[in-house]
């Protein structure tokens, strides 16, 4: 075995290991590094017994220092006597020839809190200690995470906006066909009762031809307002094409209620609409079908049937509403 005589001055120890301390065989602290002193403010470490200041947390169950010093060295976790909130220091110790020990300590993962608690600076750490690199990384990481979070937020907003636009008719702000398909699928999958009120504007072409497209657009926006007044939270007002609209009314299948809504819509639409000096007059032909008419409701089928009912309204002289169930019973009677 090679033995090399090594003696280090306190100054050298302080420079190499600013968080170290030396203890005598009796456990008296004979040296404490500058950083260790800094984190025990108001306490003279040198001259104190190590167990007055520190509590041995690991190895577990080690209370008597003598027991610890029997070994040649090893890892040690030290807490502060009577100050649980100060955290735990991690370290390694080795026995010295005089029967005492050198213990070199570090903050471990607690370094982030320690620097602010004790106001530590670059010079408080040995250059070999990677604590400063770790702090640097923690700070760089939070900066990068912050940027990534804000990017994610912006993308999320953009996604919501795009989704909303994909389901919205840009002129009127009503829902579009895509939204209609999704809503009908949801209602049918959820086995909910609903009714479709199909609205086809009357005399809209004349408005367009007489007063121009700007007037036509103005009228369409007005129609959207009238329709929105008729719907509740779970309902949908849809512009399905040029001058065709649809109300999807959830849980509303009574013919009285539906006819009332349809007639209110017609009344609302027949109120003359001012556009500059022009006065635009329109009305609507309406067809209505309820999901309860079908054993197995199918979106295309119900839509086709509301269309048929709307056509019947047009055919009967416009500005009126037709229930598809009435057409069905008329057909039956005709067949009889």
């Amino acid at each position: 075995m090679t033995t090399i005589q090594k003696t280090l001055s306190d100054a050298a120890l302080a420079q190499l290991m600013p968080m170290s301390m030396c203890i005598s065989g009796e456990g008296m602290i004979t040296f404490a590094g500058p950083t260790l002193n800094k984190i025990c403010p108001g306490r003279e470490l040198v001259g104190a017994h190590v167990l007055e200041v520190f509590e041995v947390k690991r190895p577990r169950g080690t209370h008597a220092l003598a027991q610890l010093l029997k070994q040649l060295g090893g890892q040690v976790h030290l807490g502060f006597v009577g100050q649980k909130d100060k955290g735990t220091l991690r370290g390694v110790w080795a026995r010295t020839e005089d029967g005492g020990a050198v213990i070199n300590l570090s903050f471990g993962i607690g370094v982030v809190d320690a620097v602010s608690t004790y106001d530590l600076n670059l010079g408080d750490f040995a250059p070999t200690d990677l604590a400063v690199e770790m702090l640097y990384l923690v700070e760089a990481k939070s900066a990068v995470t912050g940027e990534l979070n804000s990017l994610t937020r912006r993308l999320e907003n953009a996604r919501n906006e795009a989704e909303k636009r994909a389901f919205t008719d840009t002129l009127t702000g009503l829902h579009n066909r895509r939204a209609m398909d999704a809503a009908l699928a949801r209602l049918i999958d959820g086995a909910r009762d609903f009714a479709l009120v199909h609205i086809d504007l009357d005399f809209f072409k004349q408005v367009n031809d007489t007063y121009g497209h700007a007037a036509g657009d103005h009228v369409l926006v007005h129609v959207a307002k009238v329709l929105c007044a008729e719907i509740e939270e779970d309902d949908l007002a849809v512009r399905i094409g040029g001058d065709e609209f649809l109300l999807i009314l959830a849980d509303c299948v009574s013919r009285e209620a539906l006819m009332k809504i349809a007639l209110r819509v017609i009344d609302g639409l027949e109120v003359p609409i001012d556009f500059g000096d022009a006065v635009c007059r329109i009305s609507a032909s309406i067809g209505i079908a309820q999901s309860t008419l079908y054993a197995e409701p199918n979106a295309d089928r119900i839509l086709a049937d509301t269309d048929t009912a709307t056509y019947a309204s047009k055919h009967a002289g416009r500005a009126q509403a037709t229930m598809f169930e009435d057409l069905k019973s008329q057909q039956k009677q005709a067949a009889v």
Partner: protein
Amino acid sequence: MHGLINRSLQIFLQDNYGPAKWVEMSKKAGAPTEGFEAMLSYDTGVTHALLESAESVLGKPRAALLEDLGSFIVSHGNEERVRRLLRFGGEDFVGFLHSLEDLRDRAQLAVPDLDMPVIEVRDEPPTRFQLICSEPFPGTSQVLQGVLWAMADDYGALVLIDLVPPSKPGEAAEISIELLDSSHTEGRSFRLASGAG
């Protein structure tokens, strides 16, 4: 080009010359007028084009623009994050200069795809230093020169800085630094604890 670099350039131009000039410059360069995303990557051509249009719109030579950008990154923008991260390098200005050799590795620990210059630091005792700085992007050394001015100020050091740009594109630049007084002013305080200045 990493979005962080483009975004720094964008914020520098916006803050110093106003939103109207930014719109003019970015439109002319075909850069996103709404701004760059810090965490996305962009074609390097956009950065070149933006610098070109900044030169012509502002009537300022590129070298001066890049130097100002370097100082701006340290002393303004982004809650002084760059300044703090650089101050981790050393206790005094000389320690900081030496830490520049680790700059690339340090930066890439945090942002692996950030292309930073390779810097070699040569001491010419007692007060002269020579930095050999690679140029992943033409003009990198001019940005570094601005960073050095601002960091010297931060540490309170009085320095002379002289830049010899690369003779050919792709070669390294030489920056010589003469440290006249390492504690000319008190400098700004720096604490390891984040949020402490």
